[in-house]
């Protein structure tokens, strides 16, 4: 792919723009709360778009197109049965406790509801996870830019990291959130035309259906047995593993996204954040997954001369040629985008990378400053001290991510493994929150030992099973039809064991006085109903509309 001067102009304008927004917001930062929590003053349309943009990193974008080409429309399960119900649950039932408890982070809520050790466990795993995810995604971007444009790996990694550092250092979380909204618009502007062009060229949805095997164009019809669908999963794994445990674990407990909602300017706005965000979120598959599916159809079509319109990218792996699905998105761009819109598409890719990275860095910042530094290293310092620590942590966080990116470059397999582990490490956490928020009898020791057991159960399930020739480090008990199925089942075991152990230990340990749990647990918390709010601003109305839309989409593409 070759860029024209106009493409560079567009890219440069975007860089100037994000830095400019950081510069304009620099004066808003005078306390650690301003820097790390946005002073809880961001309007709801901004928090809700940032909520979904923080999750829409470059890896997500590349990965969704890749999965679209590999698994077809079933990939949309990550949205229509995964993210959407979880986001609705979060807005309706969990946000009142997060926002109402005045906790500054998810680990801090755990400290208020349970105890110090539960918070410590969560804060440390989360901090390590954000650094590695940010590094892995940086590595993926550097590799892609090198492959597609021949840019130097170090230059592109260091330059993009420097820009993210500059604008988050200047304006803190507010700057990250504001830029995430701009980045979200750019991702849509850069990739919606590609989805439309590719889909039209492939003959529309009907043309795609005619060319692809039926199990790639139906999301539900073939989930009865793992052997029938390209993902190798069966319906219980999809609904319980992905739809319930993994998605609720991610969207309801991952501070990276929860932090966006907590920055909203009122309880009502905080609750509406995931609900409003769910509306654009459920249509994202049409932009991020559809190009991948259309690519498979295009690969079967021939031009007048008899040549294929498009060939799925391939790479050498272990001496044989295999499909390189990760390059589907960029090769499609090269086929469909002339100079000009190509610059916008590339900028969109950069924007997605930056929004993902800024999300990780700002979440790491807050958790490190409040939950690790203020709790274990230096308590009771004046606020200005923590503001300085927050700023320094931004620099350290970016530096550590760069380190992780280089580590990924040298130890590719370890990074694959880490990424796989991150896929289910949050799974037991959702059981802890569910019991913590809705069962006042759950105790601190119950939560801690439940979490530990859940994490051990996840590791054991992973170590004792094999999927696609991988795993089985501790022995072989069961073989899964696919890595995806393995991941779903690990999550199910992790959740169930955490849930049961938390209950068992809670029953035999001393319960906390109810007066200490006010504002933290359902039944002991007054949830204000917004009588004055306009009907479309009420969480319940929004939630029902979102769910109805999601059901329609599921049925439409069933």
């Amino acid at each position, binding site marked *: 792919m070759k860029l024209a001067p106009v493409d560079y102009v*567009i890219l440069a304008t975007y860089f100037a723009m994000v830095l400019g*927004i950081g510069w304009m917001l620099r004066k808003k930062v005078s306390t650690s709360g301003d820097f790390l929590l946005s002073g809880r003053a961001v309007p709801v349309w901004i928090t809700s778009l940032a909520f979904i943009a923080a999750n829409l990193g470059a890896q997500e974008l590349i990965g969704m197109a890749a999965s679209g080409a590999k698994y077809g429309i079933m990939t949309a399960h990550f949205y229509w049965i995964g993210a959407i119900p979880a986001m609705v649950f979060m807005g309706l039932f969990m946000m009142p406790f997060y926002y109402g408890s005045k906790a500054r982070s998810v680990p801090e809520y755990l400290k208020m509801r349970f105890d110090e050790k539960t918070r410590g466990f969560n804060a440390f795993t989360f901090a390590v996870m954000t650094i590695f995810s940010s590094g892995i995604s940086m590595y993926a971007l550097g590799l892609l830019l090198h492959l597609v444009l021949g840019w130097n790996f170090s230059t592109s990694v260091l330059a993009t990291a420097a820009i993210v550092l500059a604008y988050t250092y200047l304006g803190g979380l507010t700057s990250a959130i504001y830029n995430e909204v701009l980045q979200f618009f750019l991702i849509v502007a850069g990739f919606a035309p590609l989805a439309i*062009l590719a889909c039209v060229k492939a003959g529309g949805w009907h043309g795609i259906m005619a060319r692809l095997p039926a199990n790639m164009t139906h999301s539900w019809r073939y989930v009865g047995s793992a052997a029938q669908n390209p993902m190798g999963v069966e319906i219980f794994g999809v609904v319980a593993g992905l739809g319930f445990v993994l998605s609720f674990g991610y969207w309801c407990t991952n501070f990276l996204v929860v932090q966006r909602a907590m920055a909203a300017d009122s309880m009502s706005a905080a609750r509406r954040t995931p609900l409003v965000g769910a509306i654009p979120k459920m249509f994202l598959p049409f932009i991020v997954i559809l190009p991948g599916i259309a690519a498979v159809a295009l690969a079967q079509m021939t031009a007048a001369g008899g040549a294929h319109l498009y060939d799925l990218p391939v790479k050498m792996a272990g001496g044989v040629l295999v499909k390189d699905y990760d390059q589907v998105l960029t090769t499609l761009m090269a*086929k469909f985008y002339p100079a000009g*819109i190509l610059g916008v598409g590339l900028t969109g890719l950069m924007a997605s990378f930056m929004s993902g990275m800024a999300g990780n860095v700002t979440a790491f910042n807050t958790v490190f400053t409040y939950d690790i530094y203020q709790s274990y290293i230096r308590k009771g310092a004046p606020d200005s001290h923590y503001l300085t620590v927050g700023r320094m942590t931004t620099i350290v966080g970016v530096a550590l991510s760069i380190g992780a990116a280089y580590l990924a470059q040298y130890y590719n397999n370890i990074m694959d493994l880490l990424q796989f582990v991150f896929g289910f490490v949050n799974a037991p956490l959702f059981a802890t929150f569910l019991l913590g928020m809705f069962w006042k009898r759950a105790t601190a020791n119950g939560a801690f030992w439940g979490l530990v057991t859940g994490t051990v159960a996840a590791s054991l399930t992973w170590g004792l099973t094999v999927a696609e020739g991988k795993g089985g480090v501790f022995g072989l008990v069961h073989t899964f039809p696919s890595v995806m199925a393995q991941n779903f089942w690990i999550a199910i075991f992790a959740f169930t064991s955490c849930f049961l152990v938390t209950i068992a230990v809670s029953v035999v340990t001393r319960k906390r006085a109810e007066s200490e749990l006010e504002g933290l647990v359902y039944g002991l918390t007054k949830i204000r109903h917004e009588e004055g709010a306009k009907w479309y601003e009420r969480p319940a109305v929004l939630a029902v509309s979102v769910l109805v839309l999601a059901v329609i989409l599921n049925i439409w593409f069933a």
Partner: protein
Amino acid sequence: MLDLRVPSGWFFTLLGVILAGMGLFAPESRAPLTDVNINLYSGVAMLIFGLFLLVMARLAANKSR
């Protein structure tokens, strides 16, 4: 507080002008599989979106004054 609609409105207006300009003055610039003047169409769409954001921001500013 900074109204985000102002900078992003200007940004998309500028992008729209660049792309629509490309579409008008270099309409023959096509990638292997593009059949339409995609620069023109997406440029116009971005221009409309950018102007829409600017108008919304102006209305909000007038209201609060």
